[in-house]
């Protein structure tokens, strides 16, 4: 596990988050290195641990019989909350914002495509309550496949830009 994880992706936090004291930031050129470290325990658990417990409908907070319009509306509603551009405003939860948005988008991408949704529904209903995601196509659950990297990808320190 990588133990250094700074509070945020550099750019927006500096300008938006009131909690980031400018004194804790040492500027080097145009990029920021935020010194605030959070322990690994605070890092969100990766999608692979949580994904199998909730269906894509639950991710979007909708009924299994939701219409296409409802799916789109739910996606947009959630995007306004979990999209990293929004989620960075004021709160420290950015470490998970990208992951959360990706999860929401993945659910939307599957459910808004009639074919993928039909495939997903078939598996969902036949396997419940123990949903096996491994039987789904990888496009539906990149989380599981990407989980091998999960400990590495969301590293939150920023080095200087490479020019």
């Amino acid at each position, binding site marked *: 596990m990588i133990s250094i994880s700074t509070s945020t992706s550099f750019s927006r936090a500096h300008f938006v988050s009131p909690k980031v004291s400018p004194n804790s930031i040492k500027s080097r050129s*145009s990029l920021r290195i935020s010194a605030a470290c959070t322990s690994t325990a605070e890092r969100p658990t990766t999608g692979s641990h949580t994904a199998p417990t909730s269906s894509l409908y639950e991710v979007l907070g909708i009924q299994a019989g939701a219409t296409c*319009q409802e799916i789109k509306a739910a996606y947009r509603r959630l995007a306004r909350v979990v999209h990293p551009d929004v989620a960075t405003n004021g709160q420290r939860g950015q470490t998970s914002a990208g992951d959360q948005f990706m999860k929401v988008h993945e659910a939307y991408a599957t459910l808004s495509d009639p074919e993928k949704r039909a495939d997903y529904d078939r598996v969902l209903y036949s396997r419940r309550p123990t949903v096996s995601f491994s039987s789904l196509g990888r496009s539906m659950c990149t989380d599981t496949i990407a989980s091998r*990297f999960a400990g590495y990808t969301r590293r939150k320190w920023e*080095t200087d830009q*490479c020019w």
Partner: protein
Amino acid sequence: MAEPAYTVASDSETTGEDKSSSAFPEIAIGIDVGTSKCSVAVWNGSEVELLKNTRNQKMMRSYVTFKDDIPSGGVSNQLSHEHEMLSGAAIFNMKRLIGRVDTDPVVHSSKSLPFLVQTLDIGVRPFIAALVNNVWRSTTPEEVLAIFLVELKAMAEVQLKRPIRNVVLTIPVSFSRFQVTRIERACAMAGLHVLRLMPEPTAVALLYAQQQQQAVNENIGGASEKIALILNMGAGYCDVAVAATAGGVSQIKALAGSTVGGEDILQNMMRHLLPDSEILFSNHGINEIKSMGLLRVATQDAIYKLSSQTSVQIDVDLGNELKICKVVDREEFEEVNRKVFEKCESLIIQCLHDAKVETKDVADIIAVGGCSYIPKIRNLVMSICKRQELYKGMNPLEAAVCGAALEGAVASGISDPFGSLDLLTIQVTPLAIGIRVEENNFVPIIPRNTTMPTRKELAFTTVRDNQTEVLIVVYEGEGEKVGKNHLLGYFKIMGIPPAPKGLPEINVCMDIDASNVLRVLAGVVLPGSRHPAIPVMEVRMPTVDDGHGWCAEALDRTYGSALDLVTVQKKI
């Protein structure tokens, strides 16, 4: 030589600290640096306002003149005559040159410009120079852009009465990540911090999203989803986007773009009027530059006139006993530029296809940028969408900069009591990102038009028994062969445990985070194990500097196919 007129951001900023903690966050300004014209806008507390220079212009020419060692740009400088810009002392069209190597056809087509663009055709940056007192003074597109941005910054600071640091810039869709780093570099040279870089049509989409939301707020109609097709064509680039908009959320469905624009139309017309113009002007003598300048101005003028009239009389004396006296009609103009228009058409069709949107579902067609005044462009976008009219709610020349200013306000954390800034753009990747596999094939890992942030992974394997090393070469683009794509970087995985070919699983993961930073991770897993056999490599891209042309060739020469890898055939 005098010191360059730009200031490079210092390592230890002494001024930034107390300001950023103020209760009022600094509102980032929006800048649209076009190939030919440029504009600046800012959220003034209730709406987007375009800034004007001292000559009361909102649209400023994008060029920098080098004269007596002191460069000055189109923001402050008053040209005595259009021809002064074409005397060899002014550098323009830098947006077409930035981040390109001298093997790039776009660089080659810039060789007919009045300043010096020299190519050695070996994959390094082109040599660019301005004629100052009969001396070719070398510069770079980054430097020219930085000088220009410094002027824009100074102009905005005077008008807004505050220091400007944060900017949202618009960029063409077809810009590679390497070109993006060049833009960032130019901004840093000018002391500007890039808060966001928005593909131009997505800035237009954001303005559209805001307009739709306001319309909904005013007559309390249903906030149903509206799909817009946006064509943004300026002097340098043609970009297309399909965006789904509802409730202030602009969801980009697909992007398409190409380096084709008014400059190509102009050059085609110049060639049409004077067929051997390129040979004539290739040696860049003083007289030739002058003739070329005259031809350029006359041609440009004729093209503008052809937007409102069906034929135009061109009458120009180029000196050296070269005279052009010709009537050109609109049909002829359209025939000369047929390829340009066909390219636009194919971009629109591709974008609609990628967005999986039927033309009947498109609510509004938005055509912006200087070329949107050309009747043929307007007609072709309307005919593809089977419509009779275009969206009228925005100024074609100001839409992109207004969108950038909106994003600047949103990204600065500004909120508006009337909800005018209740906006969000969900961006997609404009180009596919992937790696090189056997036989110089390109395998995308993140396909184009993938919603960002994103993380995708693909499994590869070795091509030889006991292969202990593989080369991960990362490219961006749409070509099936890597040669057609932009090289972003490369690294080697070493210490793969010896095993028969095809056995080690090499996972390559690409991650684009919320700040649009690309990281490439690669790990090796042997069958039966859940854990990486060697430490995972993580590389932030792009890592290449100049000369990516010969970089790829050098890799090929040194390693050949010895360190190749192939995609794992998925068992279904």
